[in-house]
């Protein structure tokens, strides 16, 4: 079970402000997610070897460069930009 204090701490680490009213709701949501994860974890997977080489093979990318985007496009959704940079205020 996740407590209110843990939710406050996680929010602080993520630099999110959570009001007292939201706290109850978010704590409930997170506990629901954890209960779901617990349900998944309760499935018996003892016969399945996660490290077996015959699992799905990762598809790796060849080391080839591709054109990057125009910086205008990259900066399009920035809250603030200037001289080609993203601009962040304060101490981040």
């Amino acid at each position, binding site marked *: 079970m996740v407590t209110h204090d843990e939710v406050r701490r*996680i929010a602080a*680490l*993520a*630099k999110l402000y959570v009001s007292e009213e939201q706290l109850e709701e978010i704590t409930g949501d997170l506990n629901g997610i954890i209960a779901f994860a617990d349900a998944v974890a309760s499935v018996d997977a003892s016969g399945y070897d*996660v*490290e077996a*080489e015959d*699992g*799905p*093979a*990762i*598809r*790796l*990318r*060849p*080391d*080839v*460069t*591709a*054109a*990057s*985007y125009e*910086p205008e496009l*990259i*900066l399009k*959704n920035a809250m603030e930009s*200037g*001289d*080609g*940079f*993203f*601009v*962040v*205020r*304060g*101490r*981040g």
Partner: protein
Amino acid sequence: MKWETVIGLETHVELSTKSKIFCGCTTAFGGEPNTHCCPVCTGQPGSLPVLNRQAVEYAVKAGLVLNCRINKYSRMDRKHYVYPDLPKAYQISQYDRPLCTGGYVELKNGRRINITRIHIEEDAGKLIHAGGKVLVDYNRGGVPLIEIVSEPDIRSAEEAVEYLEKLQLTLRAAGVSDCRMQEGSLRCDVNISLRAPGASSYGTRCEIKNLNSFVSVASAIEHEYERQRDILESGGVVEQETRRYDAYSGETSAMRGKENADDYRYFREPDIISIVLTDEEIEALRASLPELPDARKRRYVDVLGIPEADAAMIAKYRRVSDYFEAASYQTASPRIAATFIVTSMFSFISTEAAREEWLPPVSAEQLRELILLMEAGKINRNVAKQTLSRMLETGKSAAELLSPEELEPAGVDVDALCRKAIAENAAAASDYRGGKEKALKALIGAVMKESRGRAPAAEVEASLKELLSKT
């Protein structure tokens, strides 16, 4: 009381891939801000990372040359922290299943600095603090890195620097990174604590972040030793904290304490499935590794008879090694090429960077021609040395620079010299007759010494063999 310093290093090395670790953007250094970027490396919603094969292979090679175990199964994880250099608010890294574990670097004094692990991850962007604002450039964001974590086995600033130099040399030789500290492609965090000599447990450690030169590593360690010693000797307690090093003052200062210690909430990167390597893939990478500087140096000393110090200086630079091997190819004594390189050529090409790059005005073949002239007795050692200096200044070959008179045969009586050498070195002569081929070297040496290096080596050898076979 003299305290024992306990140091562990976390070294970040940028891999020499052409493209970034999860997208096709270039890894070229520099560029206008945010021009080497795409939705993947700027963390745009909906974009998906695809792992670069070359980054995995370079990391495996790094593991192999640093004596690590390569894990056939490893995986990527998300490391969370909120800071503007990280557009996704997490870095894709490896947590509990890194690519390489174990391993070591051996120092000159024979001590081994053990390596805990090597994992792959993406580099962060660059921040420029300007007034109250922070300017962000993500060109470096997504460049592939390996993080090499050492055990706390290092005991002094000198050992830390030697360890880093060895890493730099080895990784460069393996071709996985250029390890340029001034461009940030090799940088490290230093963990340091003090303890009473002989103590079995460690003291409280501090971490000094982001050091990007050997000088700052050494100076940060020395400053931190003094700071912690003063605290301990005045009866205080060292606080566990992260500190930053100021290159201008040479001092460290607190960044954040234990109460704000990193809480990265690692979890598996769901967009990248596990990395599974086969034995065949790992062995193919092992087979593709070039000869490393240590092995080259050994071979120069043991097989070619090069003095240890010269061999070390040559093997240190991959291009100089290749040059030396070409210049000494089929010469009677590889020592001559070695001596010319570390004396005349190294004083002409004097900086580390220039030796690394190694673009001398004299080609290896030109140096070889000069040495062959000397070994044939056409010129003596002094003339050869002077000619090499002129070759370096003018870029011309020995044949162009030497006058016909200078190239005249030395006029030594080979037969007489050889008879004299046999008479004066009876033991070597009888050894040779008794089947010890090596004894001939001593006789050739005696002739060369007597003629002050002017006798043609090939002719001397033939003449000696003939004389020795007669009686």
